[in-house]
């Protein structure tokens, strides 16, 4: 009995989808717009994540040591820093390496190079470059260094300067921007999602409104709620699946076309290769959203006409 009913409901759903050709086409197109938004939301999420990661990686602080600092003491400081949970990476740049880098940077500026030569000795101190796990944690790293954790064996501080205090304003601002971009992106995503779901819902509601007389007749010949509702839900699911697959197809040329643009705009992010790499995941999100929106819209929209 259950299987007979299910079979009839599914068959009727397919029949109705096919017979209401124009209505089905219109609904699928509207649903495609919705699913396109869902797809773009998952892309923009990835773009935002990657941009933020990129920005975060750009933030660091440099600790410059006095020229007289012993390498052993510096390595002790490095070790202490590495044991902090806030710190993700510490790179040591020795005095010689700092000098080579400096010369390279100013290779075209003859006056600086000759001034260096005149000096005779290396004026640059060794540097520890520190990357924190999160921009907000640089303050505590800087405090850690200030708080007497970077002393030589004789108890004199070996830190020349910490550029955190010079960059503090910029770092704070960036931290702030990152946090609000995260929030804004989230709010925008929710907003777009709600709007597009409402559009799809209203379209399906319209298709059911067209069939309201039929629904009341079905009621009057004694058809049960599930038996009337079922085919409409099946049609909603077919809308979702069809629109889902068409959207996935359409995203191929679209992301391909956008690929080089995104690559130059967001460093190293090619939307097309991202799409191909995450295809299964995105396909699942889009098709499942379509099925869910289609089925729930039908269920909700038809309830009103089942009262007879």
């Amino acid at each position, binding site marked *: 009995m259950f299987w007979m*009913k299910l079979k009839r409901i599914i068959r009727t759903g397919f029949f109705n989808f096919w017979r209401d050709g124009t209505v089905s086409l219109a609904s699928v197109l509207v649903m495609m717009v919705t699913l396109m938004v869902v797809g773009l939301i998952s892309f923009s999420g990835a773009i935002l994540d990657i941009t933020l990661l990129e920005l975060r990686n750009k933030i660091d602080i440099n600790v410059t040591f006095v020229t007289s600092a012993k390498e052993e003491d510096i390595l002790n400081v490095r070790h202490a820093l590495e044991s902090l949970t806030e710190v993700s990476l510490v790179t040591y740049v020795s005095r010689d390496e700092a000098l080579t880098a400096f010369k390279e940077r100013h290779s075209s500026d003859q006056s600086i190079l000759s001034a260096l030569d005149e000096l005779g000795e290396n004026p640059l101190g060794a540097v520890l470059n520190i990357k924190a796990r999160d921009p907000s944690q640089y303050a505590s790293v800087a405090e850690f260094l200030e708080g007497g954790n970077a002393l030589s064996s004789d108890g004199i501080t070996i830190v020349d300067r910490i550029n955190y205090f010079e960059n503090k304003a910029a770092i704070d601002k960036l931290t702030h921007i990152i946090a609000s971009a995260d929030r804004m992106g989230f709010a925008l995503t929710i907003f777009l999602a709600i709007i597009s779901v409402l559009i799809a819902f209203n379209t399906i509601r319209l298709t059911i409104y067209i069939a309201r007389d039929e629904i009341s007749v079905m009621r009057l*010949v*004694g058809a049960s709620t599930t*038996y009337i509702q079922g085919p409409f839900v099946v049609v909603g699911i077919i809308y979702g699946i069809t629109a889902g697959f068409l959207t996935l197809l359409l995203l191929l040329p679209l992301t391909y076309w956008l690929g080089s643009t995104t690559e130059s705009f967001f460093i190293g992010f090619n939307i097309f290769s991202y799409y191909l790499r995450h295809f299964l995941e995105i396909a699942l999100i889009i098709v499942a959203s379509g099925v869910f929106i289609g089925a729930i819209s039908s269920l909700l929209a038809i309830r009103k006409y089942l009262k007879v």
Partner: protein
Amino acid sequence: MIELKVMIVFDRVSKVYPDSSVALEEVTFSIEPKEFISIVGPSGAGKTTLLKLFLGEEKPTRGVIYYESVNVHALDKKEINEFRRRVGMVFQDFRLLPNKTVYENIAFTMEAAGRTDEEIESDVPHVLELVDLTPKIWNFPRELSGGEKQRVAIARALVNEPEVIIADEPTGNLDPVNTYDVVQILKKINNLGTTVILTTHNKGIIDSLNGRVVAIEQGRVVRDDKAGKYFK
């Protein structure tokens, strides 16, 4: 008190539509099993309203309708579905399902009643033969004439072998030959033990039936003749 012999009772039923037009006032009469009852009255008298109240499409403003001693309007959703499957209704405006073929329209009613595919495949052509519509079995309602639609509606009402057939103006769109045929079908079904409630304007039908006639005017029962004629 309700007698056991009675099948359907309208007990002081009134209906006032939301726009405060009074369609029925204190209508009281009862119908016995296997009876063939005609309800007559001028246009707007309240005949269709009476049938809508019986099928639960509209609720009475006052009064109670009993079917086999059960108040129809006290049934829950599931019970009312079962009740409607025991009643075959021919609507004045046909109310066929526009996106289904003649075959599917009739099959739908059988599916709704939980009949098997085998029963549907054998009964649908059979009932269409009875109303002489076999050639139109795969047509959609929009491709049929008014009279043909009416016959589909009749076939749909018959196919589940209901206990009661309600026919609201089933001959309104038919020529005299077809009208005669429809009346013969209803008579035959009545002879096989089905209760028939028929509304009509057609004097000829009433006279030829020579059965019970309930006349309604402006929402009131003005006459109830056991073997009535249609008087204006």
